[in-house]
């Protein structure tokens, strides 16, 4: 008996580090970030990012882990926001003595309750049918939020003042940095819990049901129940994200419930990679960066995001994380060196193609949006005359030439990768 317990404690200490060590580095980074990036804008972007991370990971609990494609997940995000903002208002009125950091629990409650309600009849099937129902429910709730104005405030939305709520150990959450730490805490807690969930038997069953629902049924598990549980819990976490949104911006409007928010979360998850737990985190971080940085430089950033998204769906369905993970075995075998030269070879025409495409689209945008008499645009630190045929010719030639060359060398590059992968697994060249 004592032998067994000895063995267990002996085994526990290294596995504790291995288990939780990977949370340590991100924790240090997250805690120290406000010291590195001191501008309020940077902190505001970080706050937005944190909210997006929770929401996207919750979303991927369904799409990546449960095989349920939802076009209406903003419902739980938005309802979480509405419940939280009403919660803050009630606390400010002195009805409930709850400190602000616990307010996201209102969102979690709303997400769970509505997830259970809508999940009860929409999780019978996965795939296309589920997607369609989620879209219908999303539209219903988005329209409802404009109709039931007492609850949602109509077009103006509902506002609150988070500083009027109870202070938490003297902290009143008046500054961006204070709310940053609140969000960071919840991001950590939520992501950790979601990760642990994916390792529980029910989390594993969600994968089984995603891959082969019939077989899971034969093993004695109801696919509906498994999906229902994933769906409800995912709704709960989305509600937490919505509540943090409410606390951060102190306003919740119809925009948090509508189809655009539902679409953006799908974009984030997919660009990051739905097949990996870290994928949606990468997706949320990159999307938020793109959104906030690119919108400073171009008005048609959404078009570029759309192009990247469609490109991901067509050519890299495993997303950005998938592209990175593809190279892990090659790197472990020490064969990255063989790939640099072919990658550089294809990167050059790809870059020229991208510059051509961006120039072309920007010229087009300026041409259709410019005031009369205006003919200059500034891109790539240069000035172009977008009415001149030369500009159009140069950009088109760059786009087409780059595309042609990239497509020409692509098979050879893919071959080199295949060889390196073959070496990584077998230890010999092909």
């Amino acid at each position, binding site marked *: 008996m004592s032998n067994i317990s000895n063995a267990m404690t002996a085994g526990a200490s290294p596995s504790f580090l291995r288990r939780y060590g990977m949370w340590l580095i991100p924790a240090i980074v997250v805690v120290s970030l406000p010291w590195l990036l001191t501008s309020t804008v940077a902190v505001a972007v970080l706050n937005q990012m944190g909210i997006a991370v929770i929401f996207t990971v919750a979303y991927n609990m369904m799409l990546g882990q449960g095989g349920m*494609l939802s076009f209406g997940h903003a419902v739980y995000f938005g309802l979480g926001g509405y419940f939280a903002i009403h919660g803050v208002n009630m606390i400010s009125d002195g009805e409930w003595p709850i400190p602000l950091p616990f307010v996201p629990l209102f969102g979690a409650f709303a997400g769970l309750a509505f997830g259970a309600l809508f999940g009860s009849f929409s999780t019978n099937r996965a*795939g*296309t049918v589920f997607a369609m129902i989620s879209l219908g429910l999303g539209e219903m709730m988005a*329209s409802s939020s404009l*109709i039931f104005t007492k609850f949602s405030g109509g077009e103006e939305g509902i506002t609150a003042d988070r500083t009027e709520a109870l202070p938490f150990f003297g902290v009143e959450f008046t500054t961006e940095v204070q709310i940053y730490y609140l969000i960071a805490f919840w991001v950590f807690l939520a992501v950790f819990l979601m990760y642990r969930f994916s390792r529980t038997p029910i989390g594993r069953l969600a994968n089984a049901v995603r891959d082969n629902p019939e077989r899971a049924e034969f093993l004695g598990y109801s696919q509906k129940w498994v999906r229902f549980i994933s769906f409800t819990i995912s709704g709960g976490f989305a509600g937490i994200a919505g509540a943090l949104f409410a606390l951060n911006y102190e306003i919740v409007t119809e925009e948090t419930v509508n189809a655009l928010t539902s679409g953006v979360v799908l974009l984030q998850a997919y660009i990051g990679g739905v097949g990996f737990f870290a994928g949606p985190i990468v997706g949320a971080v990159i999307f938020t960066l793109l959104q906030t940085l690119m919108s400073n430089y171009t008005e048609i950033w959404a078009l570029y995001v759309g192009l990247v998204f469609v490109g991901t*769906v067509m050519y890299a369905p495993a997303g950005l994380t998938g592209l990175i993970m593809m190279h892990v075995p090659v790197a472990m075998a020490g064969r990255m060196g063989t790939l640099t030269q072919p990658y550089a070879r294809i990167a050059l025409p790809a870059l020229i193609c991208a510059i051509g495409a961006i120039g072309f689209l920007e010229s087009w945008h300026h041409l259709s949006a410019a005031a009369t008499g205006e003919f200059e645009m500034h891109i790539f630190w240069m000035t172009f005359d977008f009415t001149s045929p030369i500009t159009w010719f140069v950009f088109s030639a760059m786009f087409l030439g780059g595309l042609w060359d990239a497509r020409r060398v692509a098979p050879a590059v893919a071959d080199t990768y295949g060889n390196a992968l073959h070496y990584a697994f077998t230890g010999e060249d092909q």
Partner: protein
Amino acid sequence: MAELIIFSLLHGLVYGLLLFMLASGLTLIFSMMGVLNFAHASIYMLGAYVAYTISQYVGFWPGLIIAPVVVGLFGALVERYGLRHVHKYGHVAELIFTFGLAFLIEEFVQLIWGKQTVGYHEPAVLAVPLFEMYGQTFPAYKAFMLLVSVAIFIVLLVVLTRSRVGLIINAAITHPSMVSMLGHNVPMVFMGVFGVGSALAALAGVIAGPSLGTSPGMAVLLGPIVFVVIVVGGLGSLIGAFVASLLIGMMTTFAVAIDYSFGQFFMDVGLNMDPDGVLSDLYTVTIAQLGPIMPYMLLVLILIFRPTGLFGTREV
């Protein structure tokens, strides 16, 4: 009252048949390829915009023919070079692809035609009232819309039930591999159905553009309702799509005309409701306000009580 019923019936019919033009293509594509084309409503919008551009040069009537052909070809290309490429990743990837496509089409439409509503108008011949009744007029253009959609419905019905092409399409829906064995080019049939479905959606866009307004938001306005139509009608059922289109068309137009709330109902039966209560949202809202969410409420009810849809055979 008679006035309300007659005009709501007529407008509901126009709207319902317009929905059917979109839903028929969508449900055909779905039942054949298992792909729910999220971009269907965007293609409808594209039809309106292309027709607008054509009408700038050669007038409305040529646009009525050319725009659906152009957009139909575009749809066929999307199937051939986009969807077929994504097919190997499964149905969910296909759906996500069409979602991305819808996003891109909307962005490109804004890039090319701008964010504002464009001035796409009906031809002068049809810009007159057809008849006047109880002091209300019915525009000739609406009658024209009605005519076109009824004609399309009849053509579709005849082609699918009486022609050899329809026979192959029906067979390919249920037994694609067997049809392929018999020597038919099933991928080609898929491309054709996708192209024709897109052309139908585009035609709907061409005739709806002048009446409902041609703006970048027109896809989002109609898209989700079309999905509701095909679920309520029963996935893959053309008759179901027809009935559900009319039902939803009628429902939304009639709702707009009814200014009555549950609160009034409770009042009429003698209950007094507090207009400022916590739950007052639920009974002060009028039926007219509920109009936009009625299709979705119908969707939820159908899913709970009749998961196969009205005429469908597969359970959702």
